[in-house]
């Protein structure tokens, strides 16, 4: 018991001295140091059927690194120096320890690439810090009990589903077959699709849970047509976030219909085929840096760091509360190579942004689609709008 008290005291002292450190981020030579922590924990998705083309295991980190380089290009001229301290942990407990260590070292700005539960833990453990969520599309984080010190640069599932549903409405593909995978994430994705179907006038004519546990690489041709033999649909919607069975749905459906959702035509925050509005230059820089294509997580981490840098450049200060309130005001236009200025929603801290709809080697469309109107910003036709979200981040302070 006594030992614990001493331990606690030491911890308090560490926090106090860190607070002192943090207020002295101005180095002796007048250089402003901007230290950003990158916290990553990605759970193992388990064995997958479609494991032929592996996902990069450094998704996110490489985007944050590039943004540090980009930001130092402005920093070099303003005497601001950005650096990234990386903590990549095999489990959420270890990540929490790492986060506390960085916090004790004076860091107050974090980019977090972790699932929703882990993100909530970190947000609670670091109440005086500002966290950017680049790893969780969870709608719950944006709907109610939003962590007040978290901004989200990764699009939510609701945004992705709305982006897709708008396009399907334009194409008048309104009769859907919905196939839902087995994980909680798949069910959450399916919920977002159901919500989008309702908002944009689609009808789910049939819904089937994916229950097969065989290897579709060999048997998809035999089984998938029968599995998709339902009331007639215009399009098949797949909710399979891990990429377990979904890759084997296209071309195997009972009716000759397109496939969309987590596979087929996919809504995403970023993709290799995004090239307009200067995006080609960002893609080139990223590929030079990482030796691979930039994906949605890389982009979310890149723009999170760029958001910090844009605010720091304006404020000439690294205080998390000041960055947060500037980001939540309408006064911080962020350049995301998406054809218009981006900004954070005042209610839930979500970055509003156009959503590319892609298939593996081409950009098909970008939502919001023309004609979907909104009283303040067409970008708010995607995802949880102010009346739906119960959060009011801009009313609270850090």
């Amino acid at each position, binding site marked *: 018991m006594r030992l614990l008290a001493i331990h606690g005291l030491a911890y308090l002292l560490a926090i106090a001295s860190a607070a002192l450190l943090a207020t002295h981020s101005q180095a002796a030579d007048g250089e402003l140091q901007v230290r950003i922590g990158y916290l990553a924990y990605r759970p193992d998705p388990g064995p997958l059927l479609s494991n032929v083309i592996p996902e990069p295991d450094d998704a996110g980190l490489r985007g944050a690194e590039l943004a540090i380089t980009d930001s130092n*290009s*402005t920093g070099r001229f303003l005497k601001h120096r950005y650096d990234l301290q990386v903590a990549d942990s095999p489990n959420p407990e270890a990540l929490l320890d790492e986060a506390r260590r960085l916090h004790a070292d004076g860091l107050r700005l974090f980019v977090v690439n972790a699932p929703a539960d882990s993100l909530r833990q970190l947000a609670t453990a670091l109440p005086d810090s500002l966290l950017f969520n680049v790893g969780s599309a969870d709608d719950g984080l944006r709907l109610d009990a939003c962590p007040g010190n978290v901004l989200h640069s990764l699009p939510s599932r609701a945004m992705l589903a709305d982006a897709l549903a708008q396009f399907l409405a334009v194409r008048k593909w309104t009769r859907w077959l919905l196939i839902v995978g087995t994980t909680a994430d798949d069910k959450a994705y399916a919920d977002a699709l159901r919500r989008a179907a309702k908002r944009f006038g689609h009808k789910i004519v049939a819904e089937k849970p994916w229950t097969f546990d065989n290897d579709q690489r060999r048997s998809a041709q035999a089984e998938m047509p029968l599995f998709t033999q339902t009331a007639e649909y215009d399009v098949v919607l797949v909710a399979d976030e891990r990429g377990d069975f979904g890759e084997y749905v296209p071309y195997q459906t009972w009716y000759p219909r397109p496939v969309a959702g987590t596979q087929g035509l996919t809504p995403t925050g970023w993709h290799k085929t995004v090239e307009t509005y200067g995006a080609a230059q960002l893609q080139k820089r990223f590929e030079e840096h990482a030796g691979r294509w930039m994906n949605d997580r890389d982009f979310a981490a890149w723009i999170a760091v760029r958001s910090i840098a844009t605010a720091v450049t304006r404020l000439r200060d690294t205080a998390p509360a000041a960055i947060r309130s500037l980001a939540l005001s309408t006064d911080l236009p962020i350049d995301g190579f998406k054809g218009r200025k981006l900004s954070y929603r005042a209610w839930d801290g979500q970055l509003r942004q156009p959503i590319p709809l892609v298939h593996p080697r081409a950009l098909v469309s970008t939502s919001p689609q023309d004609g979907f109107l909104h009283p303040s910003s067409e970008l708010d036709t995607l995802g949880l709008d102010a009346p739906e979200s119960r959060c009011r981040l801009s009313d609270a302070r850090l």
Partner: protein
Amino acid sequence: MPTALPTRLLATALLLAAAGPALAATAYVSNEKDNTLSVIDLERMEVTGTLEVGMRPRGLALSHDNKLLYICASDSDRVQVLDLASGKIVKELPSGADPEQFALHPNNKWLYISNEDDALVTVVDVDSEEVLAQIDVGVEPEGMAVSPDGKWAVNTSETTNMLHWIDTTTHQLVDNTLIDQRPRHVEFSKDGSQLWASAEIGGTVTVVDVASRQVLKKLNFQIKGIHPDKVQPVGIRLTSDGKYAFVALGPANHVAVVDAKTYEVLDYLLVGRRVWHMAFSPDERLLLTTNGVSGDVSVIDVEKLKVSKSIKVGRYPWGVVVKP
């Protein structure tokens, strides 16, 4: 081969050259996705020829004697030199990678080129074809201008969000001015006292006093019925008499007319879709705009401040210059 020209087009080019300077002002428009230039006869207000050039042509500049046309062929990684009398590419300059915009020094010799992928400004002597200097600037350098007295070369960097001031006597970077997000284009006033810079994502134009390098004024634009996010200033042109500034507003599909003395926005003129850059006719009675998405050129009557005509050109027109 990019330099080969069909005989018919060559004949057209020769004909244009022969028609004499007083009548036939000629506009050249770079078509980014066609790898061509459209040639517009400003008397007849129509396209009279198409010239094949390098890949992804964007920035264009005339030599000060109006004999040569410099072309940024971005994806060919070179600057091409077109002899306007013969209509032939006579030279290719070592430009550095991905040249996008450039500016010619008043000495008619030094070409300042922004290399978008390398965060460099390359200075090339157009006669000796030598690289005189490469200057480190911010990420994604884009806009480029040289002051009328030749003292300053100013470059904008799109990701660093700055104006970089290069002293042309030493080719050193001596100062930086922070402006709003994604600066795209810079333009000196004719007397050299002011520098106008557009910020595409910031949605603003910043006017800088050249002597002190301090910001004089920041302009905002509001067009009824168009969301502010779509107001993305790109090209800027200033009339010689100091009366007007014209600002191309990109996907807002409008050109803003600004009183260059009071900085008041006087009007917004509807042009084609995604308007990029502009050029005056020699007498400054007409202003041409390139409209990337609609693939045409709008002609603005500067006296009446009305759009008088649109002329279909190639795919994704980007740069434009007018030869007297």
